[in-house]
């Protein structure tokens, strides 16, 4: 993965940035999509990434910082190879989210907000992911996993390398 301390898109990624910018009446509309692209490329949105992206939009780094820090999906620090986000909102709470969070904390040996020492998993709690019909649920990277039990959580963790 490219370096978040010295971010630079490849020619292909730069072409994608340009394509995205042309989709909007004002190219600034593409800021969120480009920040997603940057996070995919560099792992997280560092201050250097913010500054680099700002340059692609003729925006101040302060504006990009304000945007990047407003949204929960942009990570401000390195995260594990996998991110596990457990919903702790109302329905998941009713259906046992607390047990799932505690189980994950024990299994991974980390607190919410932390990454395992081997860099494998970052554990987070999040607000409603809108899959309440399968509560308790969590998001594992791009995937939704629902109807969680401690056993099912263990099976999911085994699949994360």
């Amino acid at each position, binding site marked *: 993965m490219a370096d978040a301390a010295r971010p630079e898109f490849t020619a292909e990624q730069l072409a994608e940035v340009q394509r995205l910018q042309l989709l*909007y009446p004002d190219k600034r509309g593409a800021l969120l999509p480009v920040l997603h692209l940057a996070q995919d490329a560099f792992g997280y949105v560092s201050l250097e990434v913010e500054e680099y992206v700002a340059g692609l939009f003729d925006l101040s780094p302060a504006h990009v910082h304000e945007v990047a820090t407003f949204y929960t999906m942009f990570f401000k620090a390195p995260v594990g190879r996998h991110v596990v986000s457990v919903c702790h909102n109302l*329905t998941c709470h009713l259906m046992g989210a607390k047990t799932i969070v505690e189980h994950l904390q024990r299994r991974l040996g980390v607190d919410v907000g932390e990454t395992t020492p081997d860099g494998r998993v970052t554990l987070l709690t999040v607000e409603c992911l809108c899959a309440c019909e399968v509560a308790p649920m969590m998001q594992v990277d791009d995937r939704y996993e629902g109807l969680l039990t401690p056993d099912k959580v263990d099976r999911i963790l085994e699949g994360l390398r």
Partner: protein
Amino acid sequence: MAETIFTRNFHLADSHTLERYRATGGYTALDKAFRMEPAAITEEVKKSNLRGLGGAAFPTGVKWGFIPKGSTAPKYLVINADEGEPGTFKDRYLMERDPHALIEGMIIAARAIDSHLGFIYIRGEYVQPWRVVSAAVREAYGAGYLGKNIKGSGFDFDIVIHRGAGAYICGEETGLLSSLEGKKGWPKIKPPFPAVKGAFGHPTIVNNVETIASVPHIINRGAEWFAGLGTRTQGGTRLYSVSGHVAKPGVVEASVSITLRSLIYDHCGGIAGGRKLKAVVPGGSSAPILTADEIDVTMDADGLKNVGSMIGSAGVIVMDETVSIPEALMVVARFYAHESCGQCTPCRESTGWIYKMSRRIVEGKGRKEDLDTIIDVAKRGAGTTICAFYDGAVGPYVSYIEKFREEFEALVRSGTSA
């Protein structure tokens, strides 16, 4: 059982494909709409009594009519697919299982408001819906339903899919527009309303996914048919997201005139494990809570308004007798504290303090006066902020305490957590 519109193809494995959509009558409403005058489309939608299904229940045709007449400025159609109201998941089903209904509805709506560019703003966490909708949009371009001169009609329309990045406030329509413009999702003061000055400063209509997915059916089968499915003031069926302690949680399509009791007991198998019902949140977490005695209400916008709650996003969260309401309040208060965008002082400060007080109560450190303080603080801020977010938080703060006061009082008296 009432007629189904949205869910009729949900059981088919290929319901998301263009082929299946066309085989079941898809894109025929578009032919019809191209033969109608744009104003006649808006008129038809007005007559259908379609009301916004994202939360505000505003009459859709009336909203479209707010686009300034004769304006030559570019106009945008923005789909609010930033589903985030706790307890709601129906737009996810629609996007994953019937994305072409959304696309067809968008083209028809765009013709009505003279827009040639539409955006679908999908919450960032919805990766799978984003993939399915993206594939459907590509299919629609390939088949000539999007792009220049759609099906020889002379009408041009493009769709851009935009991913959010995790912020509940972007479900608020002006917050969504700020986000679409590449800013943090701060709501904007109205007026000007988006129909006059919206995305990128131009006239914009923001509609929910389900609302727009209704449109092809209205055009195909007529406003009277659609209006007849509902109540006097709201037409159609809609999708209820039912979760929590019911035997069969999931998406249920039913008339807007169904009762909450029927939804829980006839459609969702009643309360799981044979336990007793304690409370229901009928319209997403911002809707004031109802007790077990209040579920004979009809689920249309006006029915719930009459009992002091709201239909909101029709996210129904069912709680059985084992639930601690003070704990539920703490969970809900944590959500509003986390999601307040911080722009308006009453919201930013009150959501934070009320979360702290609700947590203190649950932890057995609450004081008797905390209950009235929460209600007082909540009510003072109501109606003083730029958007409806804070008013949405006040609903649960006040109703949980007022309707289950004894449970809260026992907790602050005994100093032990439930």
